[in-house]
């Protein structure tokens, strides 16, 4: 299933083809494929897993119930993909590896983008056109999901997912997607790193307030508000490859953008209140072909695509603690400066059962001996002998050596003595900083690249 990552692929330049070049390069490769279930041409499509007989609704629903065969994916806000984080590097490695594959390879970057061109710009049948209809959200969910599987395979790790660009709160295109030697860059973009979107056109509160699917997600013949609202607006604003459905998939930001579109759908549905997806058999049974990690083509109906196990971590409020590398040769105290607004937010939610704060430790080098690192808040005098029963003890992590020496990103929930920790962060003095002391027990020499606090 997985293939080893070749570090030399990191050197792949991030250049993208013009639309004309792209179409010429991939047209012959993909033009005759991906037509399963789409009419007579389907007969010529290789590796189609489904037969020609149209499934009954009962069979389709049964397939939906069997969705557990698909591994769950939890996606996070791109702002948590810090520049030094391992998962950002894995994302880059995966994209770079896919870019190196020849266009005829169904798992190549070009071929995957061509899939979008086929179904979103030049469908073999008009009624298979994905956009401007109720097909939009569900088709893209499956397209994203199976592309993500290929991306993970290309990176040789399932330790990351495609991040989402929460353009409602972050109006600038994420910095992680710029840089001349960055495989996530696309030089055709019109939107520069300092340009901002119009917040009124990326607002989702009105969309989430809708209770019926049609104005939200579309009908058989009309687009919903998600699609022609923020979705299309962001496409057009980014411009370049993103400004045209034929080439949009070439720009790596396309995937982060669509993860957020999918997240909006996920948020909408999870509100309850009678919100539901279409139950019309015409929607449930419509099927499209996708590509698996082996490069095989298979077909699934919307009933299965809609139920693919994707979920989303909430956008974090991340407080940078230290962006400089450090070494735990003994207890080390750092300070997190808590913005007053964040303090107020913490204070307002102290009575509710909210998730505990999380300490992100990025780029951690696993030492040759096992080590546990205890974390204390507002207890700078803590040392190796300090009991974890102390109220200042908020969490810990343990590193166990393995045969492979590699850096890891750690996400450490600070779930001990949470009320005390929240109290410290909600206090007016928090703007002067809340101290966190990391105490290694058992070994020393743990190094890290950066520390962040997620609230």
């Amino acid at each position: 299933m997985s293939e080893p990552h070749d570090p030399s692929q990191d050197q792949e330049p991030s250049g993208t083809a013009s639309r004309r070049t792209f179409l010429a390069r991939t047209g012959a490769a993909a033009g005759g494929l991906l037509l399963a279930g789409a009419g007579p041409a389907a007969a010529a499509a290789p590796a189609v897993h489904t037969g020609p007989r149209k499934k009954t609704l009962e069979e389709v629903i049964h397939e939906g119930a069997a969705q557990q065969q698909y591994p769950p994916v939890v996606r996070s806000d791109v702002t948590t993909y810090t520049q030094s984080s391992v998962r950002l590097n894995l994302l880059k490695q995966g994209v770079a590896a896919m870019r190196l594959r020849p266009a005829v390879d169904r798992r190549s970057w070009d071929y995957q983008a061509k899939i979008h061109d086929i179904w979103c710009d030049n469908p073999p049948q008009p009624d298979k056109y994905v956009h401007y209809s109720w097909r939009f959200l569900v088709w893209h969910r499956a397209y994203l999901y199976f592309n993500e599987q290929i991306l993970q395979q290309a990176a040789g790790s399932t330790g990351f997912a495609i991040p989402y660009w929460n353009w409602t709160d972050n109006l600038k295109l994420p910095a992680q997607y710029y840089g001349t030697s960055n495989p996530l860059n696309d030089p055709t973009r019109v939107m520069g790193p300092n340009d901002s979107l119009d917040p009124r056109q990326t607002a989702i509160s009105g969309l989430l307030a809708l209770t019926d699917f049609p104005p939200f997600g579309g009908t058989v013949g009309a687009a919903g508000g998600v699609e022609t609202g923020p979705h299309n607006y962001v496409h057009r604003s980014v411009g370049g490859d993103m400004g045209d459905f034929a080439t949009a998939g070439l720009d790596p930001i396309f995937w982060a953008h669509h993860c957020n579109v999918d997240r909006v759908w996920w948020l909408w549905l999870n509100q309850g209140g009678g919100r539901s997806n279409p139950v019309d058999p015409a929607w449930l049974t419509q099927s499209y072909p996708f590509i698996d990690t082996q490069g095989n083509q298979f077909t699934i109906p919307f009933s299965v695509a809609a139920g693919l196990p994707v979920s989303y971590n909430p956008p974090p409020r991340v407080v940078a603690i230290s962006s400089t590398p450090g070494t735990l040769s003994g207890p080390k105290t750092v300070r997190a400066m808590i913005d007053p607004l964040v303090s107020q937010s913490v204070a307002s939610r102290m009575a509710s059962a909210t998730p505990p704060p999380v300490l992100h430790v990025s780029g951690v080098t696993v030492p040759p001996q096992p080590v546990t690192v205890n974390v204390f808040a507002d207890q700078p005098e803590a040392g190796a002998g300090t009991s974890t029963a102390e109220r200042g003890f908020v969490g810990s992590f343990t590193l166990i050596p393995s045969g492979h020496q590699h850096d890891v990103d750690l996400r450490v929930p600070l779930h001990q003595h949470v009320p005390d920790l929240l109290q410290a962060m909600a206090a007016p003095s928090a703007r002067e900083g809340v101290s966190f002391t990391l105490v290694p027990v058992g070994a020393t020499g743990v190094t890290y690249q950066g520390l962040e606090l997620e609230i």
Partner: protein
Amino acid sequence: MQGPPRAPGGRSAKRTRTALSAALLLLAGCAARAGAAAPSSSCTPQPGAMPQRYTLSAPVAALTLGAAPLTLGPCRLSADAVRSVMAAASPGAAVLLVEGVRAPRGATVLVFVDRPGASAATPTADAAFAGSFTLLRGGPGGGVNVQVALAPQLAAAVRDDGEFTLTFVAVDPRGRAEDPGLSMDRVVLELH
């Protein structure tokens, strides 16, 4: 085509405009104030139809939207329809359905309810801003259909007299006025 002067937005301006447009409503229904030749429409619900549909432009002539804003209306809702909109719990209780939209170069269109003076300079923070729709370049030649939910803005507009206008403003991604060469076959208000 140069349309008649547009009245500035706001409730007081609306009073003047309503008096002037009553005859227009009888003769030509909901008329386009700028852009293409004014098509006629009944601006009344289709008998027996659910959802209630108010057509603000007739299918006999496509509307075009250029650099100048396009205002449709005023359109008067029935008393029942006004009560329905006022009681709406969801923005989706009133949906604008724009049919047969074609914008070969791509377009972003801001939709304002009862703000006939709206332009590219009108901030999207304006309470009359109901939403926007964007089309990318290319797309199906026959045009596409888009929806904009606008119950809150419509409720505010029809509260007093049951009348409202719709104003479409084409902007580029930076919010500046532009001529997208956009056309649309029909504009329909659906009340659910």
